[in-house]
């Protein structure tokens, strides 16, 4: 199972990076989205996956009873998801404004200030 998830992570990274190397700024943002998913999944899987149960202490206990899924990567991912949403929204709005300013989504037409 982990092997399959590892392959999914690799595919997500590869697709995300490939899209980042396109000339269209829209594809760049899509690529960033895929890489965000890949990173979250990477943290999740390398923290070891555990079927069923959850990191919640049962009412009749005071500590987590093994086996339980690791709460640390979950906390990390939760904030990463929300932050990822924030940055993605920012990137999208930037994209929109850039498109309004230069009337193109071709990044080769946007880099005149860079050279």
């Amino acid at each position: 199972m982990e092997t399959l998830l590892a392959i999914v992570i690799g595919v997500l990274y590869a697709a995300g990076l490939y899209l980042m190397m396109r000339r269209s700024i829209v594809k760049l943002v899509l690529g960033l989205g895929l890489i965000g998913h890949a990173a979250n999944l990477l943290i999740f899987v390398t923290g070891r996956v555990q079927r069923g149960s959850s990191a919640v202490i049962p009412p009749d206990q005071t500590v987590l009873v093994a086996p339980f899924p690791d709460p640390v990567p979950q906390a990390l991912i939760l904030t990463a998801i929300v932050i990822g949403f924030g940055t993605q929204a920012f990137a999208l709005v930037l994209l929109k404004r850039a498109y309004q300013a230069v009337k193109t989504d071709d990044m080769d037409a946007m880099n005149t200030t860079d050279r």
Partner: protein
Amino acid sequence: MAQSEITQADSQSPLMAWAMRGGIGWVLSILPLSLTLYFASLLPTITSGTVLRVSYTWIPSLGVDFAFIVDGLSLTFVLLVLGIGTLVVLYAGGYMAGDRQIGRFYLYLFLFMGAMVGLVLADNLITLFVFWELTSISSYLLIGYKHAYYSSRSSALQALLITGAGGLALLAGLVLLGIAAETQTISELGSRHELIVNSGLYAPILILVLIGAFTKSAQFPFQFWLPGAMAAPTPVSAYLHSATMVKAGVFLLARLNPALGDTPAWQITLTVFGAITMALGAYLAVSQTDLKRILAFTTVSSLGTLVMLIGIGGEHGIVAMMVFLIVHSLYKGCLFMVAGNIDHETGSRDVSILSGLRREMPITFGAAALAALSMAGLPPLLGFVGKELIYESTLDARFAAAAVTTVAVASNILMIVAAGMVAVRPFLPTGTTRHSTPRHPHEPPISMWLGPAVLATLSAVFGLFVVQVMQPIVTQGAAAILGEAVEVKLKLLPTSITGYFLLSVLTIALGIVSYLYARPALMQAGKATRGALEDGFVNGFTDLVNNTQAFARWITRALQSGYLRRYVLITIGAVVSVASAALLTRADLSAIRLFDTPLFLWETATILVILAGVALVLRARSRLTAIAGLGTVGFGITLIFFFFGAPDLVMTQFSVETLSVLLFILILYRLPIFTTISHRYSRLRDGIVAGLAGLLMTMITLLTIAGEELKPLTPFYAEASYVEARGRNVVNVILVDFRGIDTMGEITVLGIASLGIYLLLTLRLAPADGQAEAEDSTGKEQL
């Protein structure tokens, strides 16, 4: 435009007008004057052999203290820095009168003064270095003060690059010294001399420290920056390039003499480089026609003398160095100000057209004459005492005494010639017809002649009362440099006819003869060799800088194409190659277990859905299809979280995914459909690089899973979550309690991102299309 109006209005106010006429110099000189008086009040304490120390803890973990020491050496330097500083502040008020930026000038000047005082008082290697760098930076600002001139900027940059590079070497040297001596306190280094010399780090320490000192004090082969720095306003030259900054290197060598000195390497290096600098400076000085350049090269020569004397060492060498240090500061500060007066009053610094100024500028002439006599080493001025001591020590040198003495005599003869060129020639009438100068000369205001007059008088007073005034402080200074108490007996005139007295007489006689008869020949020789000895160094340095910049440009052009995808390609390519190399050589790939846990139908189906979503994004022709694909991936991952016990993540990812799709649709709806604009070849290349990166990530994931489980934090959270934080949902407890500050930072970032989005959307962009042209001018002003 508005700003200049304000300046104009200000300058019309009586106070500002008074300040710009030079009055500000009188007020501001109170500060350095009172500090001078304070330090002068310490003289009785210090000359009685006491050493004052004060120390504040700064970076205890690195052994760095903000530590200062007042002993004979630092007190001598502080008094020179502040005393001459007082006169320079006053002088600058007159010299810079009318300058609108005078406030900025004084800011730099006081910054430099403070840095210099800190440098000479420092008792910790790092404290010393910090002030050392501050002097480099503030002198850059001062040399480049007339920033509208290219020559001014370029010589400031040259000085900064050389002293800055030297500063880096010095930092490395001082850190190594601290390691070798096991202390950063300078006053403790002397007692660890053996430890340092035998530590194996001695050679690198010596080389690095000497690079620092030689660059700062303009020693061969770095001597060329000092004449270049003459682009500075004359008050700056009088201060930085006579008495203070260029002496910082000499100070450093003197300060570290107890720690690093007394070895053949130290003695030979300092003596040889000092002697070369001394001779080269004197030789080049007499072929100049610009007053300030003559003075600059004689300064180079004098700095060489000082370094040589430290190299010769011993009681004789060090006492001679201490006396000559004071001699030189007094007469050189005076002569620079004299040069400034001549320049200021006549509009020219060219000695070949200046003559007969004696009548118009009598006080300036008097000061110049006294200073020049001290420079030439005639009794009863202090310069004579200095010259006697120099010969005494060169005759006494532990190696090559004859050669060193010969070089010293030759240099001193040339110095007499230079003294005549600076202080005699412009003032006395020459046989030829008098050239007209750009301005009709007259005596400058009191603020400009007081400084030279005071310094010249001191040269005479210190000479006449050498036993009473000089002996006590020189004794303590020499003791600090040698690291042991010494008994010094100074005298103005020798009591018997000694070898060095005869040398002095010979020097003076030959000097006067050379001034009268050999000047054209010296000028000729200097001009003939100028290409190699003067311009050669400058050009070599310029080439070095240009080649470095060309190399940097080449690298930049190769890497920074301005195309984002190229940056991504280079970065990913580099990461993949380095990481793959590490993976293939270091990692144990056999540990990977491919078929560990069984496959469940629903999980496998979800993974297939995710892969299909990725394919949809990659192959999409329309934006909506791509968004749908991205959403599929996101909801698929939500399911993965669901299968593996992360209900919080399921809910978060689900809502975020919904909102993301909404946002994408809101924004991307109006954009054009995708077109294939890249070449088939580049798509293939990008695909290979991206594919390799993906493969790498898969391998890393598999290796991590196969490795040992390292979860140092998890057991703590599992146990403390309810008992200590009263929460059963461990994920939530981590977020709002254990790692609450992280979360607070995160929501702050979210808030900022949201505000940024709001501003981006409400900001009115300057129109970029055709209609912009009409509004162009107004649009630019708003920006």
